[in-house]
């Protein structure tokens, strides 16, 4: 089963605008990661935020984490057509059976040139 859920499911914006995607999860985590997937390709890691961090930046990406609400957001500033892709959050599950990463259902972002 998937732990995370992203919203919106789909987002369409004009080039230059900012894009915000949200992720909610169900159980306690150590880390939360965001990945990007171009159509028909594998996933590419974007950024990792630890449970004791509240905000992290990487280039045009800004990630926030609110562990009390079990939610995270990914902000892409000054979007480009090349940012068009699906974006997934992934959380690690604290289980005694081992380590897993659970992915959400994804947000499909379209940036219109």
């Amino acid at each position: 089963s998937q732990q995370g859920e992203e919203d919106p499911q789909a987002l369409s914006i004009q080039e230059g605008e900012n894009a915000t995607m949200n992720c909610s999860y169900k159980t306690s985590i150590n880390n939360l990661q965001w990945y990007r997937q171009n159509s028909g390709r594998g996933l590419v890691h974007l950024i990792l935020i630890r449970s004791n961090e509240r905000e992290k930046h990487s280039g045009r990406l800004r990630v926030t984490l609110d562990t009390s609400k079990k939610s995270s957001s990914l902000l892409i500033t000054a979007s480009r057509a090349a940012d068009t892709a699906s974006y997934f959050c992934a959380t690690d599950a604290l289980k005694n059976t081992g380590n897993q990463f659970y992915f959400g259902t994804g947000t499909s972002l379209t940036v219109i040139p």
Partner: protein
Amino acid sequence: GAGVSQTPSNKVTEKGKYVELRCDPISGHTALYWYRQSLGQGPEFLIYFQGTGAADDSGLPNDRFFAVRPEGSVSTLKIQRTERGDSAVYLCASSLLGMTGELFFGEGSRLTVL
């Protein structure tokens, strides 16, 4: 190789047949994951290896699915008596640090069961 390699990239088979999907992780990565992704969905966890052993196989849907990693490097996902519902993209990922690190994904193996 430089990245995670998965073969075949596409596999079409008939219902009831046996299928093997191969994953060659990044050299030195001890953690290896298999995921399954259906159209429009996120990756669904199947199994996780730490070295040669399956640390967590709780995501395997039933006993038709099995995966091995005999030497702690290459892994093979095996599906017996394939069903149409097994059609999906099977993704492999490897990681140097396991749960605490980023996953490096291959391009996936697209399985179509007719």
